[in-house]
């Protein structure tokens, strides 16, 4: 093959060599006080707005409920009525006459038990439904119907079955929180990219290794979404269930306060229920962040 090449002449300019003195620069570090000041500012930006809103709402509440004959107590009265409960949460006079700490911890124990069961069973069922088309076809319609049943509707049935309040309450938590865990896990498993399955196939991971090394980490963000919804639901369910089964627990504490017309105690209890629910949600979210580190991106 013959060919004529076009010649391109290129003039290259040579840079003129210059010698410049090298100056060593010490990186400037902001003084420590400045860093603290910035941190304080950042915290203030986050903390001050909610504080202002809470203060305003409390003020409105105080003004509205202050006049004589109002049905609900103003915050000042709530505080003076419940001072003992707030400052001594650990007293125990036997029976259900206990401090709020004991009520909350009884409720939390039930939730811990029921929720752990539903997390284990939910992830297992979710994996089954996500992996197997037949399991999905068979079980999914069932799940879709069962998950719409309100928590308390299960209570009479479980009381009939277990003949005891404690396991019934745990069962109600279990049955309430399991659905979002199953459904989200199944979606996560179904969404595992084919690439990862191919990698596992080429490396020849056995089913157990595939489960531990590919499936769980790949579906972890979805699983934790389910777990987070689940913990919220189980905290919702426990208060309602305890109102009916009685005994020690924050739910029955509220019901008992209502029966004895201690409205201030109800308000205090609601405050605690809210805070505990918030903390539980944050805990699961934090655990999720820790576990799915790296998986969420990409």
């Amino acid at each position, binding site marked *: 093959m013959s*060919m004529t090449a076009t010649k391109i002449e290129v003039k290259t300019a040579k840079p003129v060599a210059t010698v410049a003195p090298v100056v060593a620069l010490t990186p400037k570090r902001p003084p420590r006080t400045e860093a603290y000041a910035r941190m304080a500012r950042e915290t203030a930006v986050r903390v001050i707005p909610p504080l202002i809103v809470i203060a305003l709402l409390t003020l409105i509440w105080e003004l509205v409920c202050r006049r004589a004959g109002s049905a609900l107590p103003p915050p000042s009265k709530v505080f003076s009525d419940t001072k003992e409960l707030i400052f001594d949460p650990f007293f125990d006079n036997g029976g259900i006459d206990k401090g709020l700490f004991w009520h909350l911890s009884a409720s939390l124990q039930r939730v811990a038990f029921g929720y752990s069961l539903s997390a284990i069973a939910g992830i297992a069922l979710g994996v089954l439904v996500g992996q197997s088309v037949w399991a999905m076809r068979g079980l999914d319609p069932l799940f879709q119907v069962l998950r719409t049943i309100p928590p308390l509707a299960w209570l009479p049935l479980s009381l009939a079955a277990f003949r005891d309040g404690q396991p019934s309450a745990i069962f109600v938590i279990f049955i309430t929180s399991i659905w979002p865990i199953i459904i989200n896990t199944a979606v996560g498993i179904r969404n595992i990219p084919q690439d990862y399955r*191919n*990698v596992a196939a*080429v*490396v*020849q991971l056995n089913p157990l290794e595939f489960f531990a090394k590919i499936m769980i980490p*790949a579906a972890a963000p979805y699983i934790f979404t389910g777990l987070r919804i689940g913990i919220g639901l189980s905290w919702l369910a426990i208060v309602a269930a305890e109102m009916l089964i009685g005994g020690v627990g924050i739910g029955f504490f509220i019901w008992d306060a209502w029966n004895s017309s201690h409205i201030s105690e109800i308000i205090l209890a609601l405050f605690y229920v809210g805070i505990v629910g918030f903390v539980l949600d944050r805990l699961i979210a934090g655990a999720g962040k820790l576990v799915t580190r790296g998986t969420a991106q990409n």
Partner: protein
Amino acid sequence: MTAYLKLDHIDKVFTRGAATTEVLKDINLTIEKGEYVSIIGHSGCGKSTLLNIIAGLTGVTTGVVLLENREVNSPGPDRAVVFQNHSLLPWLTVYENVRLGVDKVFAKTKSRAERDAWVMHNLNLVQMAHARDKRPSEISGGMKQRVGIARALAMEPKVLLLDEPFGALDALTRAHLQDSVMALHQKLGNTILMITHDVDEAVLLSDRIVMMTNGPSARIGEVLEVPLARPRKRLELATNATYLKCRQRVLEFLYERHRFVEAA
């Protein structure tokens, strides 16, 4: 010619409900040990399906894949794949990604320390040892592909399958990685089968180029020998007559005789 990897009358038909599509028709190909073969064709011609068949990820409809005269029909580390989009597991570090395969393949033959050394050896081969503790999201696309190559090499495959390995990279990174793969092929003498749609890449890297006709029912249209001596230098080849002739042949095949109709 001694057949190392042999594709014998491979047909592939995809069936979805009542509709059937014949993707590959009567594919015959023999690859020698240590050979670098590229498969080139327009997108949708079934070249990725062919690679998946060799990898064992997709089954054949009729025909057989023989590796060292043994039929292969399921995936395995003897045919390690470098995937187009690297497919590193994002929750594992670079080291752990390579280690995953090594632990499985050498579970019985290498001790823990040996496996560790072998992982580092392979990361060194692709110059990625410095990033051993980084996660895939923290390294660049080219680096991810390097790790993907290390993961495949570390399994000591009989055939290394590259599925458009440089497709997702920018031109400069791609050239750099092509040079790396050439150097590795030179050094280790692997048998490599690469899917590509880049003519220059095919001519530069391969001993033979397999050109596929358009699908459906894609066949092997032509096989071109690239009689260029190794090691090949990108810059010198730019004016090499043989190189240009080979390039010309592939271009003619792709753009004149088997033009991609849908793209027109």
